[in-house]
């Protein structure tokens, strides 16, 4: 067992009193909600397809399109020039129907994978919902990925269809087409009558697509979504999610985001990552609220204007963005009428207590941090509107979710005896955060990697890889990652992927990649590089290697810092000791080095 970390006492508890709120929170009494919760009740509240079966797209769109909510704005896009494009639930149902119909006419079968490489454009939302209606599987890719991460994911996910733009296709996919034989169709959203070679004009085809008819009646355990994530070693992992996940999207949207039918909701996450899908598309649509989508990148002034002009009531954003806003100053927020805002939440990485508290000054509301992962499919641990906040804590488990702290041995592995994991019951004692397996949005596998999937579980618990502690009142506190995965701007970056790309550079013999603290992004990627004989370390070479990596991996994944080293520290078995690189980079004690390779 590892030493306990003293509880943070510097930040006073933010006490909540919701009696004066005009909107009654969905979760008023945490203990009672946990005691009475059942997933089956949540499934009943949604109901499924009238003819039987389930489909996320039905719950998200068609159900509302057939109700008195049909004319309500489902999506409200803020375009680059600030103009607004609204799509009602009825229009979104029709658009997605046509997309489903197009997939059928292209011969796409149930279970086949439709990928997107897009920014937050209207076509993306149509594609997600249309794919689900057809019973195919949707996999979004982050549009800032370079060609290499794109190729790898299209290949691992066996993409049959890719929806993208002309520019992104030219930059990142066209040259790889011959390496991707499974990719039968590339649909360009902006072909404008002149698709590139081997691509199709999405808009023209959609316009001709006949009505789809009855949407696919799926089984709850049928695959719906595929989200790639990164581990310490090896290739990216495709986390498989099923149609029943919508049950969790619904329940967590209700409790953790407090969504009410009249809300105007804005999730700033990019749909290339799981938050942008689960909470940027599915959860708000299932709740029938109006979702604001900003097609542009973050800019403080623009964001405040959107919050004010769109009268956003519930806002779900990320620590990196909040830290940038905090840097710009609370006065900027106060210059706008943010009086509609009633709930602010954050996810992606632990939110510093300073920012939680700053929310009160800037928005009149503290920021509610919550915790989850690609694998969990939905929010698992959260701060709630009605619950006192302990700044710096991720909050308490959602109703229906059982969390625990699992003891770790000296090597960092979970302690398992006779098939049972040893749970830590003492408060404020660090261990690995674990969740009792079996909630609806839990991943059902890593695509084609059964062994890797099984390793995530022990004794009926999903082991999250995050280190945490629980205080005596049941609030969870994030401590750190249990592995070498880097978290930059809320995105997980696998060091191995970056190292592999660096080693393709002519001058690089070996590379070790870690995350170093950054005041805005949480962490940024830093590479330590050992050069091949005959190459001299220089500033020009440093920039050349960084540029090389950016071209392959994209800005979000490539190292932002690079240092040459005569020899990387390694274990006797030859594994790079990233832990030691990190200790050196941060000037920390290097700890036990007894497994170091001799002579290094």
């Amino acid at each position: 067992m590892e030493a306990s970390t003293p509880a943070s006492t510097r930040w006073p508890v933010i006490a909540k009193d919701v009696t004066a709120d005009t909107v009654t929170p969905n979760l008023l009494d945490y203990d009672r909600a946990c005691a009475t919760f059942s997933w089956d009740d949540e499934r009943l509240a949604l109901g499924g397809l009238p003819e039987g079966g389930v489909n996320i797209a039905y719950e998200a769109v068609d159900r509302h399109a057939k109700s008195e909510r049909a004319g309500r704005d489902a999506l409200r896009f803020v375009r680059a020039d600030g103009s607004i494009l609204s799509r009602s639930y009825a229009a979104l149902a029709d658009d997605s129907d046509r997309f489903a119909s197009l997939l059928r006419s292209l011969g796409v079968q149930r279970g086949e994978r439709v990928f997107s490489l897009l920014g937050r454009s209207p076509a993306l939302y149509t594609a997600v919902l249309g794919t689900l209606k057809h019973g195919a599987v949707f996999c979004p890719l982050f549009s800032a990925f370079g060609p290499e991460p794109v190729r790898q994911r299209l290949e691992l996910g066996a993409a049959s269809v890719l929806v993208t733009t002309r520019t992104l296709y030219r930059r990142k996919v066209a040259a790889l087409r011959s390496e991707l034989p499974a990719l039968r169709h590339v649909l360009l959203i902006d072909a404008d009558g002149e698709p590139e070679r081997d691509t199709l004009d999405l808009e023209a085809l959609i316009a001709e697509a006949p009505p789809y008819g009855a949407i696919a009646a799926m089984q709850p355990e049928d695959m719906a979504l595929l989200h790639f994530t990164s581990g310490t070693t090896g290739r990216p992992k495709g986390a498989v999610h099923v149609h029943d996940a919508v049950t969790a999207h619904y329940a967590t949207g209700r409790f953790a985001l407090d969504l009410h039918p009249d809300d105007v909701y804005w999730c700033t996450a990019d749909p290339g990552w799981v938050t942008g899908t689960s909470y940027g598309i599915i959860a708000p649509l299932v709740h029938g609220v109006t979702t604001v989508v900003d097609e542009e990148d973050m800019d403080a002034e623009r964001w405040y204007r959107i919050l004010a002009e769109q009268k956003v009531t519930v806002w779900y954003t990320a620590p990196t963005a909040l830290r940038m806003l905090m840097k710009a100053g609370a006065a900027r927020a106060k210059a706008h009428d943010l009086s509609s805002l009633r709930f602010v939440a954050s996810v992606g990485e632990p939110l510093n207590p300073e920012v939680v508290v700053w929310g009160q000054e800037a928005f009149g509301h503290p920021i509610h941090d919550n915790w989850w992962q690609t694998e969990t499919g939905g929010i698992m641990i959260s701060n709630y509107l009605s619950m006192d906040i302990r700044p710096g804590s991720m909050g308490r488990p959602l109703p229906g979710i059982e969390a625990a702290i699992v003891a770790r041995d000296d090597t960092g592995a979970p302690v398992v005896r006779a098939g049972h994991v040893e749970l830590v019951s003492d408060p404020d004692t660090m261990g690995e955060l674990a969740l009792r397996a079996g909630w609806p949005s839990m991943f059902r596998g890593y695509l084609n990697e059964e062994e890797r999937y099984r390793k995530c579980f022990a004794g009926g618990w999903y082991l999250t890889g995050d280190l945490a502690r629980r205080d005596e009142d049941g609030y969870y506190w994030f401590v750190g990652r249990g592995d070498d995965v880097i978290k930059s701007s809320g995105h997980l970056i696998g060091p191995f992927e970056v190292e592999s790309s660096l080693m393709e550079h002519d001058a690089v013999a070996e590379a070790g990649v870690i995350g170093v603290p950054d005041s805005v992004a949480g962490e940024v990627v830093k590479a330590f590089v050992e050069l091949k004989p005959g190459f001299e370390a220089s500033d020009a070479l440093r920039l050349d290697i960084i540029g090389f990596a950016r071209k392959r991996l994209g800005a979000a994944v490539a190292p932002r810092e690079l240092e040459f080293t005569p020899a990387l520290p390694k274990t006797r078995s030859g594994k790079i000791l990233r832990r030691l690189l990190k200790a050196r980079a941060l000037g920390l004690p290097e700890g036990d080095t007894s497994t170091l390779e001799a002579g290094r």
Partner: protein
Amino acid sequence: MNEHEARAAVLAAIHEVAPDVNTERLDANSRLRQDLELDSLDFLRLLENLAQSTGVSTPEEDYADLTSVQRLIHYIAAHS
């Protein structure tokens, strides 16, 4: 600092932050995000870099205007 010097400083800063960009043959009308594919962290680093090399520190409210290489050059020239 005149336009010429500002241009040299901006190109040097872009090269440092995003060495994948060919600054020798850079169209000044290139947009930082869409064309050069700088992300928001790159952008912040670019401004930090320019603050060091030119002494021009950019208040946050001016960020939104600095969308292209040319606009950044003008800005640095005007504020140095």
